[in-house]
């Protein structure tokens, strides 16, 4: 009995309590934030139709209590506008991972407000699924450990391998696996009709305003009921087997591909809320063992450290530059860039033949392994290409016109950088220019 209990405890520890890197959750946070944004933001474009007193509203009394609905309905339009503003703020904070847990809780609070105010557009079964996921995401700050403003503020260059109890990721795994399982179960039992009838055949024949999109093979399926039935049974088999395939290590990767393919097919063929498409494939990626992700990153870092690296040349006497460089170190997931304080280098021309102290004082420089030299805004642009956390910035720094505006903004910051810090070395700004 004692041995049995010990064994059970060991299994439980391994399943839920063992500390593992939280990088997968951090990535998932971004997917969740985008899913929420894609679903809620379109409804906020037209407040008078959707949420103001002039809107057409329906209420979800299965989900909310009548008291909550009544209370929320008393909101004047100004309060609706305030919640809209708050949603945008907290949603953006959650997306970038600033105060991750608090912003998640507050964002979810605003989502509940809009759901109680009007369930007509936002309320779907997939939205209820997303709220379950969001509830779990609110429980801990683990999702802000990496790919976040929080990790930049903490300044830990090894934030990507921060370990946390695995229970949250495990519950998210169980959630998606169970959802697949129950979806199949409902199709073959309860009031489901996928065995005794041919739902796919009916879907392929819905009139034009129906839920089925006009995809390439629709007309073929519409006249081949047997093929539709086989497709339906295949879907059920996939949904039933996915949970098991996902938890079995040897079939896990195939199951992730299969689940992702399943949702691509879903979005291409049916007009169902895109929450499934945006949320489920990233949630499937939570089945990848986080230690394997960290191992892969470490291997890349090791390879990069042995290879010829780019060198970022900065001013070590400038607190603003030091703080920025520290953030760049946190962002440098694959260890692609070596940071060099030119103030500690005897011969600057050893770094690059055209560099002088004056040039280095004026802006950062990036010397790439092939000897190419980039300065200021161009250097930052190049950094955006190699640091995953800066990838979203690519949309901004390569936006048409940024080649002209970007260097001016950079020059302004570079010239005033000594005023943007609290570095003791330059408290009197003696080293300014």
């Amino acid at each position, binding site marked *: 009995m004692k041995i049995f209990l010990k064994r059970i405890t060991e299994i439980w520890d391994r399943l839920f309590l063992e500390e593992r890197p939280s990088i997968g959750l951090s990535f998932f946070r971004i997917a969740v934030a985008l899913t929420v944004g894609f679903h809620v933001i379109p409804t906020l474009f*037209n407040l008078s139709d959707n949420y103001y007193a002039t809107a057409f509203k329906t209420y979800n009394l299965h989900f909310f209590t009548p008291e909550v609905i009544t209370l929320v309905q008393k909101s004047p339009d100004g309060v609706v506008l305030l919640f809209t503003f708050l949603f945008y703020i907290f949603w953006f904070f959650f997306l970038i991972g600033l105060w991750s847990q608090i912003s998640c809780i507050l964002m979810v609070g605003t989502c509940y407000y809009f759901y109680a105010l009007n369930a007509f557009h936002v309320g779907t079964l997939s939205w209820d699924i997303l709220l379950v996921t969001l509830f779990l995401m609110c429980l801990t700050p683990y999702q802000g450990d990496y790919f976040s403003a929080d990790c930049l503020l903490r300044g830990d260059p090894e934030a990507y391998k921060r370990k946390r109890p695995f229970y949250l990721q495990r519950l998210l795994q169980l959630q998606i696996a169970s959802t697949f399982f129950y979806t199949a179960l409902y199709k073959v039992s309860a009031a489901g009709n996928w065995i005794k*009838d041919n739902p796919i055949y009916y879907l392929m024949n819905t009139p034009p305003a129906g839920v089925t999109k006009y995809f390439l093979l629709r007309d073929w399926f519409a006249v081949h009921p047997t093929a539709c039935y086989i497709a339906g049974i295949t879907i059920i088999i996939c949904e039933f087997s996915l949970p098991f395939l996902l938890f079995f290590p040897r079939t896990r990767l195939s199951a992730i591909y299969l689940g992702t393919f399943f949702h691509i097919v879903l979005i291409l063929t049916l007009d169902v809320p895109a929450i499934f498409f945006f949320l489920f494939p990233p949630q499937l990626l939570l089945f990848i063992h986080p230690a394997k992700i960290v191992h892969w990153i470490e291997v890349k870092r090791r390879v990069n450290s042995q290879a010829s690296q780019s060198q970022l040349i900065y001013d070590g006497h400038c607190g603003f530059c030091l703080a920025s460089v520290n953030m760049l170190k946190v962002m440098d997931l694959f260890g692609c860039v070596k940071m060099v304080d030119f103030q500690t280098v005897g011969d600057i021309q050893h770094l690059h033949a055209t560099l002088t102290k004056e040039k280095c004082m004026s802006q950062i420089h990036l010397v790439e392994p092939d000897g190419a030299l980039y300065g200021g805004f161009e250097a930052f642009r190049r950094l955006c290409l190699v640091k995953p956390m800066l990838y979203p910035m690519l949309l901004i720094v390569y936006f048409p016109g940024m080649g002209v505006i970007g260097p001016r903004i950079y020059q302004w910051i570079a010239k005033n950088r000594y005023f943007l810090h609290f570095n003791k070395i330059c408290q009197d700004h003696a080293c300014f220019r």
Partner: protein
Amino acid sequence: MSKRIRNIAITIFVIFWTILFHYESTRHFYLEPLVGRPLLKMKFLFPPAGWIMFFNVGEDTGYAEVYGVNADGPQQIDQHEILATRTIGFDNIHRNVLSTVLSSDMQGPFCRFLQRKFPEFDNFLVTAVYYPSIVKAPHKRLQRVVYQCGKRP
């Protein structure tokens, strides 16, 4: 918090959550028929009847069509004009979201909404379109007026 207390808290939560999740997943279609009475639904989380995506698709189908009436007679209003909120990756109208308005409870609020949104019409006809069998009789389309909004006050 010590590691031991943290682990106990996590263990209690995981057990509680797992039971709740599976209870809500099975409550409506499996547990309630089993015990023969309605069971308590957890408010503020979980869908009303489990994960029932497309679990039952019949050969009949239906949707709402709305007509604005003025001196020129009735004119069909595109559903995308009625619900002008655009969604990403799918079409809410094709999801048949407008069928909600066919409920008689919706007559008052929906009529007020239509009257505000389409002031050029004097009256509105909210109709239900019904296909008894989209495979056996794909062109058999039945339509009836469910309610009309009446003259603008």
